[in-house]
């Protein structure tokens, strides 16, 4: 069932993305973009990232796309007017795009991600083990606890319920990493959170808001004779 849903949404996302490329009408493009982005958000749900999925829906689909449509409405001078590219350009772009896709896909599929992860995990275990060995405590339990906390964090009900963990992480507290674990010397562990980036992004958004309002403000139109 999961696989079926994945393939369904993956195909919708990819097909809609391709439709965005192929369509020339901006509004249709926007429509397909919404479809694609919504599918992506479903993929997020499948990846146990509920909050990110919801954000994707709210911000992209509800916000960005409306903004895009806004732009279209304000800028198109006639109904269904399209600005077409030349076929040569299309062909040329398609070739480049296919090459690009081939490149990325070959990269993706040539890497043995599982092996990588295993190696990484091994390395971490090794470090933890050495530490445990030094301190002579029951390291088997320790391993389990640590692994689970890394994998699930504060997440008792369902894997997708990451809202709280995300919120606290953005406030600088990493329950998902620190809860129930201790540092190397038995003290409370304090991993790095994202408070500063969060603040920076907040200020950034404010600045963008003001800047965009300034840029798009109503002003006297410049008459261009040859336009």
């Amino acid at each position: 069932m999961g696989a079926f849903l994945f393939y369904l949404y993956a195909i919708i996302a990819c097909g809609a993305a391709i439709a965005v490329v192929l369509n020339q009408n901006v509004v249709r493009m926007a429509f397909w973009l919404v479809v694609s982005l919504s599918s992506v958000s479903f993929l997020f749900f499948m990846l146990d990232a509920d909050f990110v999925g919801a954000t994707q829906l709210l911000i992209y689909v509800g916000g960005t796309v409306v903004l895009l449509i806004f732009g279209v409405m304000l800028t198109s001078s006639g109904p269904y007017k399209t600005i077409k590219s030349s076929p040569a350009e299309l062909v040329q772009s398609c070739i480049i795009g296919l090459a690009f896709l081939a490149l990325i896909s070959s990269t993706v599929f040539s890497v043995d991600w599982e092996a990588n992860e295993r190696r990484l995990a091994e390395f971490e275990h090794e470090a933890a083990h050495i530490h445990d060995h030094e301190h002579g405590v029951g390291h088997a339990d320790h391993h389990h606890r640590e692994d689970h906390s890394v994998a699930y964090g504060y997440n008792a009900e369902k894997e997708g319920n990451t809202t709280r963990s995300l919120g606290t992480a953005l406030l600088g507290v990493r329950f998902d990493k620190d809860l129930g674990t201790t540092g190397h010397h038995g003290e409370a562990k304090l991993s790095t959170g994202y408070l500063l980036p969060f603040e920076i992004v907040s200020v950034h958004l404010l600045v963008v808001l003001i800047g965009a309002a300034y840029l798009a403000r109503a002003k006297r139109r410049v008459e261009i004779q040859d336009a």
Partner: protein
Amino acid sequence: MSPEIYTQIGSQLMWLLTAAWLLPLFGFMIEIFGGYWSPRTSKTPAYIAVGCIGTGFVLSLFALGIWVKAAEIDLLAFGGDEAHAVAHDDHAAEHEHPVAHDHDRADGHDEAHEHDEHAEAGHHEHGEDEHSEDAHGEGEHSHQDEDHHEHAVASHGHDSHAGNDPFKTAFAGTFYRLGKFGSLDVTLDWYIDGLTVLMFAMVTLIATCIHIFAIGYMSDELTEKYEDHFVHNADGSHFHRVGRFYRFFAYMSLFCFSMLGLVLAGNIFQVFVFWELVGVCSYLLIGFYVERKTASTAANKAFIMNRVGDFGFLIGLMIIWTWFGVFQFAETNPETIGEAGLFQMVRNSAGELETKGEGAEKTVVLQARQGIHKEHPVHATAATEIPYWLLVAAGLGIFAGCVGKSAQFPLQTWLPDAMEGPTPVSALVHSATMVAAGVYLVGRFYPMFTPEVLLVIAYAGCITLFVGATIAIVATDIKQVLAYSTISQLGYMMLALGVGGWLAGLFHLITHAFFKSLMFLCSGSVIHGCHHEQEMTKMGGLYKKMPITCWAMFVGVVAISGLAIPVLLVPKLGALAFSGYHSKDAIVASALTFSNLNPNHSLLFFMPLITAGITAFYMFRMWFMTFFGKPRDQHIYDHAHESPRVMTVPLIVLGFFAAFCAIGGENGPLAQLILTTEPTHLANGFESAGSVALSFPSHHQIHDNHATAGTVALLAALLGTLLAYLFYGAKLVDTDLMKRQFSGIHEFLREKWMFDELYDWMWVRPVHVVSSWAVAFDKQVLDRFLHFLSYLVVSISSWDRKFDEAVVDRIVNAVGETTFSIGRSLRVVQTGRIRQYVTFIALSVVSLFVLLFVFLPR
């Protein structure tokens, strides 16, 4: 006193005096920057200046109080019976402990019946010091044995450092380290002892009075259009300019800052810096009326003459730097182990020079630098001994600076010319403080002077005081009289210092500052009242017009003349006399004792004695000529008026101090305050063998001669006064006739002993001749050579130009054109189309990875 209390008092004094020192600088900043933009009729700059220096005075008073309390001087017990002081000296002599002696002195002149008990307590307190003293005493007894001495020093470490300190009651420290150049630490230091505190109080008090006086005196500058009657334009009209009221007070504030900095300075280099700063202020103030040719010339003269002296100062500094490696006077803090200062290096614990060898080989052993800083435990470059003649040279060099600053022979000629400045300037800068700075420095640097140097100082002072006094007899400009009198009195001070009367010299410095600034202010009042008329030959009878000024002047005249009423000796106060009597008495006593001990140099006693008479004569001459008799110029007399209260009140204040500041004489509070700072080696006198065999008097010996000297000096002064009264008061002698009869001498004196002509002949003319030769050489040889060279260069460069145009330019142009054409052909790539750019990016990423896949081994 315990180290904690010592540190506490030291920091209290330091903060108070630093505040007093920096306030005028602050004032200067405000005045010089704010004054330019403020209305010219505003008196605000004056108020700021008075406020700053007045606050400084209050702070200095606090410092003085702290000092008095710390030094344990009982001010109210001054005077006493004179036997008491003698008993002290006896006591000290019995114990043969200079430190204990000093300590007793610092304890003050307590009641006689408490004395023994107190002395015991003192011994108890200073037990540790005395222990180390004893160790040093051993070292001294066998001071040929170097090793033993050093051993003693090393074994006692910190204690011996304190014991080696000849200035037990001084406080020293560092504000800020400016930089360290090799072994030389250039720092901003402070050094506070009784002399510093006293100088602060004196300078700030006098400066405050003079500032207030100047508000009135300089009030005609409070205008947008000041008419200078002494400067004429080409068409004969008077010169007009804007008023410079603010500038005057700004300069005065700057001067106060510099002078206080000079006094507070803790090392000789810093002294030199402020020395030059006061010089600059003096230059600016003399040249205040810069449009007057005489004023600007006088300013230049003062500055240049001072440079001559400062050259010697610099030489002294270099010697000190080379051989001592430090500039600090002394390290006094018992807690810190700083570097030993100059005084501690030159003098041993008993305050004596330790010498080795004889003749040209003679050297002075530098005391081990006990308190070497931990940062640099060993000075590789520091010498352990200095050739004696170099120490003499250093002393002479420093003294040369003092000669210039204090207008001593042979550099005395700038001071009378400096009277071109406004009278408050003359009162503050050129009588009370700056010119006294030379004397102050000699006093401060006393431990560094060898007997040979002291003899030079004494003779320089002796010649100066006589020359100055004689010229003053014939001077007719009221300020000139006072200027020569200043030179003469500075000579007195130098003489006193030179003959070992350290206390007398500095005592006179203080008293002279008061009465001379008083008299200058009085003369200023007269000049102001007479609408800028300075010639005494046009005055007379002004007593009725300006009584306050007259009687204030009288106080000053009596004080400087050293008059006293010997008959009415009040037991507690000594002779009923003004301050000048006491200080001059002390000088004459020192001189008499010195000439008794060294009969070869008896001139050093007779000259001041005679000059004491002359002093009284010319001072009373001035007073009589100005205030009594018939008005010589009716016009001036009619328009003369008493000065406003803002000018007379300072006169009264200063008059009070001129009269009573030295009350009690050498046992009085002032002298005792100064005495707390006296170098230890002076109290018992000392002998010097070698090239000049000299014997310097002890306190005791001076005291023995006190009565004799006082009597003789008073007689001379009375004689002078009487003569002056006969000549100018009673008019029994026709002065014009006298003038004609002694026209040769009169003319000689009028021409100031022909010093200006002498210098002109000795220096200026030879320089002119040499320079005319140089001009000829320049024109005939150098110029021709240069012309030839320039011709050569022009011809070469014309060839070079052709090369440039033909070769270099073509290459450069070719490069430029190539670049341009490449750019032009490449500009089609930059289409300005975003989409193409994105395509290129994607393409290049793909091709880059393809390249990687193909060529990079996996």
